[in-house]
Structures are given as C-alpha cells and as structure tokens.
C-alpha cells in the first residue's frame, strides 16, 4: 500500500515536472530575449541570469538550440569577444527585431496567462478579499 502511494506520488511529480518543462519550452526564447535586455551575454552567462531570476530548471533541452534559432531568425546579434585569459566567447545581444519580438511575446504571454488564470478560476481568487 505504501509502495503504491509512493509510486503515485512519484508519477504525479513526474507529470508536474513534465508540464513545467513543456510550459518553459514555450517561453524559453522570450526569457532569453528578456535576460539579454540586461546586456550582451554568452551562453552560460544567460543560464546564470535565468537562475538568478528564479528559473533554475533549463528543462528538457538546453538554451543552445533556442539561441541557435534566435540567431537564425536574426532576433539576436552575435559577436565574438576575447575573454579574460580564457577562450573568446560568443556574446548574444538583442537586435531591433528581437526587441520587437520580445515586446510582442510579453503581450502574448500576458494574455495567455490571464486566459489560463480565468479558466483555472485564479482570477476570482485575486478579486476576493
């Protein structure tokens, strides 16, 4: 009996983790664009910035494929900068198109979040004293 409960709990936790991962995957590009707003950054530096903002789980994949897509779509500009004694690093910075995409994405996120909040009844909870 105890084993069954433990299995159910583990399965539930796995599903939650999977949902969180899927949710994150849908907005990871936005998050990366947002942390680039703090200034140009290389790959791992962006991971650290995300972590500093409370996003510690990179999720199913990593940020590199997303950065690659942003670069291909010209939403970021890149330049290689020599490190302090280390190898040259590739720095990513927001392009004009990236800035616009970030603004649009934030608006989309807000509307989607509000809709989901409404569906989950969370909007009513906020209204109540």
């Amino acid at each position: 009996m105890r084993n069954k409960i433990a299995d159910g709990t583990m399965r539930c936790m796995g599903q939650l983790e999977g949902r969180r991962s899927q949710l994150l995957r849908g907005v990871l590009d936005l998050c990366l664009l947002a942390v680039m707003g703090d200034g140009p950054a290389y790959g791992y530096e962006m991971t650290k910035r995300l972590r500093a903002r409370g996003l510690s789980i990179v999720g199913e994949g990593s940020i590199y494929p997303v950065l690659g897509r942003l670069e291909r779509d010209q939403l970021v500009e890149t330049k290689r900068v020599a490190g302090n004694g280390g190898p040259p690093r590739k720095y990513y910075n927001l392009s004009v198109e990236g800035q616009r995409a970030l603004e649009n994405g934030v608006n989309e996120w807000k509307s989607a979040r509000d809709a989901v909040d409404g569906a989950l009844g969370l909007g009513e909870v906020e209204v109540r004293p």
Partner: protein
Amino acid sequence: MSEFVDECRREWHRLGVADPIANEMAADLTADLEEAEAEGGSPEDVLGNSAFDPRRFAAAWATSRGVVGTPTTCCLPHWRKHVVVATIACVGALALLAGLVLVSGRSSRSVGIARQFFAGQFPNRSLRLGMPRMVFPSPSNLPFIRVQIASANVFHPLAWILLIVGMVGIVCFACAVLCWSRWFRSPRLSRRHHESSNAR
C-alpha cells in the same frame, strides 16, 4: 566533458555541418562547460537533460541554427528505416525458406508440383534434382508431373538458384538483425530508457 564535446563533433560531422561552424560551437560549449565546472557545477547545469544525450543535443543545436548540410550517411526517417529493415528481413526469411525447401526437397523422395494441365504442357519432362527417382501418387486419376530426384551428383539449375537465394537470405537476415540492434542502441532509444529508469 571532452567526451561530450567529441560526441557532438562526430554528430555535426555526420550531419554535414561545416568545420568552422562546428569548431565554433564546440569552442563555445567547451568554454561554458569549463566555466560551470570551475564554479563547482555540473554539465547538467549548463545543458539540462541534454547532458545525457550528446547526439540529440548536437543535432538539435545544428538544426535550429540551420547549419545542417548533407549528411555523410543515410538519414532516412526513423519509421522508414524500420520499414526498410522489415522488408529486408522478410526477403531474407523468404530466401531462407527457399533454402529450406531445397534441403528438404533433397531429403524427400518426391514432389508433386502441377496437375494434368501442366503435364500436357511439358510432356515427358521431369526435373532432376539429384536423388533417387520416385513418382508422386496421382489422386482422382489426374496424374501429376513427376519430379524425379535423380541420383546424379550434379544439381539442377533450380537447386543452384535456391541455394544462392538461401545464402543471400542468410546475409540479408544477418544485416537486418545487425541494423536493428544498432538502432535499438541509438541515443533516442537510450534516452527513452534513461527517462523511464528515472521515472521508476
């Protein structure tokens, strides 16, 4: 760590990513992994779950960057690979069956293969397959072609064909099994195995 990057390099090479781009990605990855390690972190801190599947990670990165060229090896979609292998396996199995027919045909005494109609087409003709002659009984007065298996040591051409087809079948079957076993060890599946073992 270097093993992970090396594995990525191999995958990029396989996918036809140009060397300068592959070198650039490898250098970025190495620098980030080294920095994480210097800070006491692990590859998972940089790569997430991708740290367990370098080939998938490398392919995803190259694809998303749009730098995948012409793959150096065959890259059929996954389901097509299985169809191809299944077809080869079926052909191989049929060829093996043909080989077995040859073997059993040699040991049996006779084989009836057609009715009177065919006998009329080929009067007084019989196939000699190398074993003692024996006549197949003819039910309801419809005589069959008699396939005589003569005692001569020389095989009939049909026997040679069956023998060659059987050998080809063995080779095809072996190749199919080999391919299947390799694909079952592919990163995609090993990753699934990793995930399922984690879930447990």
